[in-house]
């Protein structure tokens, strides 16, 4: 299965992926309209320090502990992609607690959000990959 991988050697820590992610999932057609003057809730986050940076997002684990621990059945695996049904989420945040990568986060209105490989939006392919200026984030079979 194709997944999003990060090659930290080339990650510049520019944070563009975060904005591209937030925009892709905003449902808006203009980035300024979508993101200007608002708190941004990206599903990918840049971590690192002065010397190294890398983008963190859901690994779409084969045996996902988040799905197992979800008390409301909001998280499920569809064709390998771990997806979340926002209507079912009860904001218990267990998934955030158990995710070993810190790839699940609280989104707008406290509902849990996570990377769904842009299958639920109109981007077509992961927006973070498409917008990465240095090919540090790739979407590939490994």
């Amino acid at each position, binding site marked *: 299965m194709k997944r999003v991988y990060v090659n930290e050697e*080339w990650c510049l820590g520019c944070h563009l992926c975060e904005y591209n992610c937030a925009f892709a999932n905003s449902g808006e057609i203009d980035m300024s309209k979508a993101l200007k003057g608002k708190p941004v809730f990206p599903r990918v986050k840049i971590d690192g320090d002065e010397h190294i940076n890398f983008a963190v997002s859901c690994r779409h684990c084969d045996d996902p502990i988040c799905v197992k621990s979800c008390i409301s059945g909001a998280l499920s695996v569809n064709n390998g992609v771990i997806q979340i049904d926002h209507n079912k989420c009860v904001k218990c945040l267990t998934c955030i607690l158990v995710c070993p990568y810190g790839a699940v986060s609280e989104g707008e209105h406290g509902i849990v959000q996570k990377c769904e490989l842009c299958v639920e939006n109109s981007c077509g392919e992961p927006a973070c990959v498409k917008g990465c200026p240095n090919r540090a984030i790739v979407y590939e079979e490994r």
Partner: protein
Amino acid sequence: MSVEFVNPEFEVIRNDNRCIACRVCERQCANEVHLFDPDRGIILSDESKCVNCQRCVSLCPTRALKIVKNECRLRENANWSDSTIKEIYKQANSGGVLLSSMGNPNPLPVYWDKILINASQVTNPSIDPLREPMETKVFLGKKPDKITRNEDGSLNCELLTQLELSMPVMFSAMSYGSISYNAHASLARASKELGIFYNTGEGGLHEDFYCYGENTIVQVASGRFGVYEDYLEAGAAVEIKMGQGAKPGIGGHLPGAKIVGDVSRTRMIPEGSDAISPAPHHDIYSIEDLRQLVFSLKEATEYKKPIIVKVAAVHNIAAIASGIARSGADIIAIDGFRGGTGAAPTRIRDNVGIPIELALASVDQRLRDEGIRNNVSLVVGGSIRSASDVVKAIALGADACYIATAAVLALGCHLCRTCQTGKCNWGIATQRPELVKRLNPDMGAERLVNLMTAWQHEIKELMGGMGINSIESLRGNRLMLRGIGLTEKELEILGISHAGE
């Protein structure tokens, strides 16, 4: 100096309706032009630091930025131009020699743009490169005057080593130190994939790139940085750099700040020491000395590698080239006055040397007049900007072209001409690790391959239009060229007729 005489050259225009304060510009600017103001939630600009490299413009996700020329001008004066006056202020401030980078930006004649190419109509057919073979392969090196035969009468087919190029373009010398590791990696990988050559420049060859030796020309310059036996052995050819188009007659100076880590190791000089290339080679004060170095290098490489002698295009270039051809060199590389550089004194860059078009035309003709054109190959550089420049150069008489500015443009360079600061935001002309990593060689090599492939297609189209299906039939074929808006003298030097003739 308390009074800052020099106005910022550029103005940063930020469209506040678009800016989402993502701070990408701030993080990407090594010159620290942009600054986030957390109190107001907006980005501020300090335009005095801006070099107009357009990194922020390119990466801004909402296209909120543009960099424009600062409209604040001094009173107009046709004699004292804005830039002349500002240069005086700068020198009055610093007391130093003005430095510049990349090629001569002044509006001097670009002869390529005054030369037009022919095409077949009626009397002979043009050839469609998509349907018919169209050959761009070139062999560089000395060709024998006479054939010899074996005892059985068959031809003795042993040739001195030739460089085989899939197309008549190579990446010219840019040293490791002046450009980054990743830039070199991109050039090396692309050359291998394309079947052409890149040139180490005078900074030695990083140990990681010895594996690309078959596609590498190793350079020996006056500083002899990084030159030792394995280095000479590693390349496919050895280039003696006598001069560079951007700074004929002077040497080089890579500041100690750039001599760090691998650069120091590759150059074989201590970290932090300035790398100074003397103006002349101190073992070459005359043509007979050059012959000795040519043959020293041939001895060192057991006559297995062609020796290139690179010179800047200067006034008596034809006589110089003739001397080089007779010095035992296999290939002469000539660099025109618009050629680029990582750093050169501005006065030298902008005032010394001659255009490559004229140099090429006179050298090619001179070597033919002396009957020695086939003894040596001619490679020209110094602002070859496109496939049509290549075609014109070949038709004027070159065997191949050297490109460097076009190559770094492909790698992301935006020609801001401040390489000398070492703060290249595109990861090319810098040694700062956080900047170097901005050039991913996977992308760099791919873009270079794309560029050359595109040029090759265009060269084939132009050749096909002329009814020529092999690049060697274009070489020196000046009848395929016509001048436009040139004087009799210029036409005479170029050896071409005027359009309409």
